[in-house]
């Protein structure tokens, strides 16, 4: 089970985001992947054949940790590498989706800086 370190760690004030419809607490500066792993989530997305995928390289190379993310107040979900993006208050995240079966973002509506 993944846990946050507690000894000799100072964290800022908690922020709240939404993961699969549920409010989740996180700390500023954490990556989306960190927060999802701390929540016990292991299926970040699924392949075309339905196989689960989770972080492998944790440095932006393997693209295995992608999840769907919408900015606060936006309904435009975009696939992001969860290891490369810090959490933001109000961010909406969906895990376990399949990229090849998802709809493309209308980029005009999208305001997540990447």
């Amino acid at each position: 089970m993944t846990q946050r370190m507690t000894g000799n760690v100072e964290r800022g004030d908690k922020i709240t985001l939404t993961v699969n419809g549920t409010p989740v607490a996180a700390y500023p500066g954490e990556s989306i992947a960190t927060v999802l792993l701390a929540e016990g989530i292991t299926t970040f997305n699924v392949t075309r054949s339905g196989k689960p995928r989770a972080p492998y390289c944790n440095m932006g190379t393997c693209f295995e940790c992608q999840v769907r993310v919408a900015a606060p107040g936006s309904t435009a979900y975009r696939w992001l590498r969860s290891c490369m993006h810090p959490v933001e208050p109000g961010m909406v995240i969906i895990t376990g989706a399949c990229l090849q079966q998802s709809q493309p973002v209308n980029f005009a509506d999208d305001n997540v800086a990447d």
Partner: protein
Amino acid sequence: MADYDIAVIGGGLIGCASAYYLAKSGVRVVVLERGQINQGASGQNAGSLHFQLEHRLIQNLEVQVRELEYYVGLARMSIALWQGIEAELGCSTELSMRGGLMVAETPAEIALLERKLQIEQSQGLGVELLDGEAVRKLAPYLSNRVQAALYCASEGHSNPRLLTPAYARKAVDLGASLIIDATVSEVRRAAGRWHITFGDSAGKRQQISCGALLNAAGAWAVDIAAMARLHLPLFPVGLTMNATEKTEPQIPHLIQHVGRKLSLKQTEDGNLLIGGGWRAHLRQREGRWSRAESPDMALDSVIGNLRTAAEIVPMVSSLRLLRTWTGTTAITPDQLPVLGEVPQAPGFFVAAGGSGFTYGPAYAFLMSELMLTGTSSYPLAPFSPARFNGLNAFMG
């Protein structure tokens, strides 16, 4: 010494597919491959199924009208072959035939599309000229720069990593012999048969004889011809391909450009494959082109290719480039394929010369007919090596 009816030199798409069609007809066939199956251009290309006359073929359009008409006929035949290919091979090749658009941005480019359309329609190829508005209705991901496009509903793509191995497996199932790591060193004709010497994977010298041989060695076909004391005008070229990260399915078509170097498609996995004929630098060894090494990547090709792609398909600029690779193919002086028997060398057949993925299955099918019966169900005469006869006037 092993005897065969036909030996195929080169285990790429044309070689393996020819072996399949020949074995299906019941002849004893062997494939000699210097490395591994599908190791060369057959496995390195973009996987486009482009049945319209492509960018490189229409540069000398007016002096080649007749040849190009025959070429369009080959395209029609290829469409039918591709439509049945997964059933024939009994496996997926990630085949997608959901249409292709060749786009134009300027009045001069539109005029070229119109001229091309005449030739293509005269041969019964299903193509249609769309204006900018109609193009964007069909393909909303295209930029406003696109003023018109020729649409061919049969175009698409397939996975080059899957096709050749599928043909090779089926050929072996039908009794074809397939020898990898076989470096051919001698090709001699004696007493009405061809004798081929090669080094096997252990470096041991082996010899076979055959009634006829098919030189399908791609960029190495020149060397194989030279062993038979023949000139073959094939010139190696290095090309560049790019793959982006995966994105949601949104480009069902093959995209090409009539006036610029561009091919673009989205794979089943969601990656965009971007190419279109951008050079890579062939290496040289002792003043000769090296074909055993991958060509060196040219950064200006990568930048130019991606810039062109992003101008035509703006969403490209939001994607990351995952990788670039280079490959070597071989082209002829007139950009048309070389398909047929060399007149000075009875039983020495050649199939080479570019666009070998789209047309490979058709070349292989027709060459197998030609080798077995002396004639083919679609005329190959316009592409015969006989058109370069002068080169071999003192050879053979």
